[in-house]
């Protein structure tokens, strides 16, 4: 009985229609959480956190840069796992999630790169430095663009989904290797550049707003992923009767 219940739940979760209707109710709440976290984090980080001893006020860009990088990397794993779930259990919804995750992740990676460059100017005196993290971010951007571009190789989207999922998995195995390699390469060539020390050495007054921003970015990611996936569902399921019903209802409202 229990197993049976679990399976029906599993399949409902896999149903695009179920996802579409459920998220309709989640969206306002998630958006509210996202907005309050982002506003609180930004105001706290930009106005109230103390300036950095060495970098002054320019360090405040980390309140955008760090969350964007963190979520972009996590997003790659989410995308690859969604693809794997699609390959193994043949759940269409999970392919739709994978497809939606790619452009969002690429955009976040791009934001991380741009903010990194802006931050680099006052810190290192140059917009681009082949720092380990920035280099890794650049490679991550290529990986995302690759997943997005591969789709156009295939004329049927069933094949495109599978191919992207395979590429995502290959990338997932490689991402840690790439990160470690770039780290090692960095220490080999530039043993004494400024290291951005991690969280523990940051003052709590600086660190807490960062935590708020990271959680806020995750909420932003969730909201965008849901919105993208809902659009993808409508695009792919336009023949389904419930989508047609939805459209007629919307038109009737007007």
């Amino acid at each position: 009985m229990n197993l049976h219940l679990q399976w029906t739940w599993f399949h409902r979760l896999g149903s695009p229609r179920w996802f579409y209707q459920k998220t309709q109710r989640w969206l306002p709440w998630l958006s509210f959480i996202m907005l309050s976290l982002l506003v609180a984090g930004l105001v706290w980080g930009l106005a109230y956190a103390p300036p950095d001893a060495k970098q002054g006020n320019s360090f405040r860009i980390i309140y955008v840069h760090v969350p964007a990088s963190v979520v972009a990397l996590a997003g790659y794993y989410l995308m690859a796992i969604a693809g794997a779930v699609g390959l193994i259990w043949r759940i269409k919804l999970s392919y739709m999630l994978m497809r939606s995750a790619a452009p969002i992740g690429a955009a976040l990676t791009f934001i991380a790169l741009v903010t990194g460059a802006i931050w680099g100017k006052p810190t290192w005196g140059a917009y681009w430095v082949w720092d380990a993290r920035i280099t890794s971010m650049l490679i991550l951007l290529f990986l995302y663009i690759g997943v997005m571009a591969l789709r156009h190789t295939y004329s049927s989207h069933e094949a495109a989904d599978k191919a992207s999922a395979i590429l995502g998995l290959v990338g997932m195995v490689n991402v840690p290797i790439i990160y470690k390699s770039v780290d090692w390469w960095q220490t080999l060539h530039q043993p004494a550049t400024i290291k951005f020390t991690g969280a523990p050495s940051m003052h709590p007054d600086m660190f807490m707003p960062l935590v708020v921003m990271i959680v806020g970015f995750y909420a932003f990611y969730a909201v965008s992923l849901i919105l993208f996936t809902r659009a993808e569902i409508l695009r792919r399921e336009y023949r389904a009767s419930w989508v047609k019903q939805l459209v007629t209802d919307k038109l009737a409202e007007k």
Partner: protein
Amino acid sequence: MAATNILKIDNLAFERNDTLLFEPVSLQLNSGEALHIEGANGAGKTTFFQILINLLEPSAGSIFFRGQTFSKCRYDYLSDILFIGHQSGVKATLSVEENLRWMSPDNTSAEKIALALQSVGLEHYANMPCYRLSAGQHRRVALARLVTTTASLWYLDEPFAALDKQGVAFIEGCMQQHLNSGGAMVFSSHQDLVKIEARSYRLQSYREVM
């Protein structure tokens, strides 16, 4: 000899871009039988063959080979089929004989290879690289496999394309012999075959039910 069931297809359907390509297919094939797959261009004949040979995965339905589900007898099934499709699989830089050897089962004797080449009229070309052959001769190299194969289930997708009368007669002969010896086959062709007694199955393009 009692006819045994070789192939059974149950409600086989294939989706491309979320649309079914053809109406779900259900059919049976017994030993000694030939099945002629018909259908308009674009009805999915080639796709249907690719599902049968396990290149594409069906979106729904199942295939049974000698009463077993496909996943249980994958090895036996694939060892016992012969597929000749639109592309011949002939390598242009290899010679006629090398190509035929590559495409024939293990331990095919030299006599058998020679016989096969003779029956498709290529015995004088055995050592010629295939890029020097005409399109029809190219096709004959692939079709010479019909003589060397030991498979009991043949899938022939448009075997008569690019062939002259002689070539057609050769294939018809091979097919008849295969059927007489208890083999089975599925083929598609735009030409009407008078000589081979075959059931026909028409693939219907899928029509949406509103």
